[in-house]
């Protein structure tokens, strides 16, 4: 599976974008998952629907909405540029944003399910021992939901590797800067006879996926062992 330079760039960039997106999205997704799992507030169903929206909308629409909001002339994009000098459109950071948004519903759901499965009695026990809420979260809740966080991270990472529609719409397809694996694959597929190069990249995407998933399965097993102890038969 030899790759030409452009393909290598796309591969490298995809990995960078996916890793960054996963790391950036994790804490936010965790927070939203917490709100949805434990919060009691009006508009919870609405927040939940909002989180699901990137699943429901065609990716191009999401990309277009990102462009409107985060483009240099968009309200948020303009603000970010004027105040922090940050540009997202046509940058790899924009690809990260697209990946974060598109992977968000997957991450939130996995974490939410995990949080909902935590027995609040354990958290209460920690509180009676003097642990402050933040400490309860860090030392009891967080380790117990580790499998869910891991699952969310894998899903988010996988989605980030595969994201295409929103990314190309928001940050275009600039080789070396915003051309991710799927953009490259897509371009190859648009030319008659480009299948060969597309297949090489698809195989690479598979390799990444298999590696990430295998790694996560291995980690999950360790985490499960940590939580449940050496599986006794009882």
């Amino acid at each position, binding site marked *: 599976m030899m790759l030409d330079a452009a393909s290598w760039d796309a591969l490298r960039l995809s990995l960078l974008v996916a890793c960054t997106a996963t790391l950036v999205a994790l804490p936010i997704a965790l927070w939203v998952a917490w709100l949805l799992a434990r919060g009691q507030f009006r508009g919870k169903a609405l927040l939940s629907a909002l989180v699901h929206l990137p699943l429901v909308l065609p990716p191009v629409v999401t990309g277009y909405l990102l462009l409107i909001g985060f483009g240099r002339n968009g309200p948020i994009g303009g603000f970010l540029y004027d105040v922090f000098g940050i540009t997202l459109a046509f940058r790899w950071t924009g690809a990260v944003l697209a990946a974060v948004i598109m992977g968000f519903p997957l991450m939130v759901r996995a974490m939410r399910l995990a949080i909902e499965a935590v027995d609040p009695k354990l958290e209460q026990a920690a509180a009676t021992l003097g642990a402050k809420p933040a400490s309860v979260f860090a030392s009891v809740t967080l380790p117990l939901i580790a499998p869910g966080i891991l699952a969310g991270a894998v899903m988010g990472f996988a989605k980030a590797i595969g994201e295409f529609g929103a990314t190309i719409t928001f940050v275009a*397809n*600039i080789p070396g800067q915003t051309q991710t694996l799927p953009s490259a694959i897509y371009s190859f597929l*648009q*030319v*008659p006879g480009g299948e060969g190069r597309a297949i090489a990249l698809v195989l690479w995407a598979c390799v990444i996926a298999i590696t990430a998933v295998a790694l996560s399965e291995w980690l999950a097993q360790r985490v499960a062992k940590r939580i449940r102890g050496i599986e006794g038969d009882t």
Partner: protein
Amino acid sequence: GAVHADTTVFAAASLRGALDEIAALSTTPVTLSYAGSGTIARQVSIGAPADVVILAHPRWMDWLETRGAVLAGSRRNVANNSLVLIGPNGAGPLITPTEIPQRLDQGRLAMGQRDSVPAGIYAQTWLETAGLWDRVIDQLAEVENVRLALALVARGETPLGVVYRSDAQAEPRVDVVYNVPKTAHDPITYPAAAITEDGRAFLTLLSSPEAAAIFENNGFTIPEAPQ
């Protein structure tokens, strides 16, 4: 082939405006399925239930022909198009393309993907001919279809964009700042072909004067010598 009550046309998405109107002229029902040229070509090659196929670039039609997926001899160009350089409203016209780098400044030039989207391929040829390719290559914003390039300029995200005249004409938020000479790139043609016998009638309709009027109305031009 099977007798269809109606004619199914697989067409390049960028033709949508004109084709919808032309289909309305047909006496028999016409169903139009729009997608990218590459997608359509592959679908047709694998047995899509299409009677007519219309693409935005000759390359994919060549590909189909070599596979014998279209009726021999039915191929014809139904419309031509031309490239324009656009800017947001109020952007002044360019005298020569050499002003492009200046006009871009730090901004980007929006266009179709150079190696896959037809408009991008034509744009690259033009920029190369004009000796500008190397100067703009790092400032391109290549997108997956021309409509997006149009939107980028319309929203002011990029100061310039290369699109089809037919697209530019429909978007009030952009102004044409330069007309790309037709000689600067391969002719922009929209080849059509029949896949089933049922499709021939629609091909004929496409070459009719009524259709020609609609194409022109939508910013296309008509091939000088319709085959």
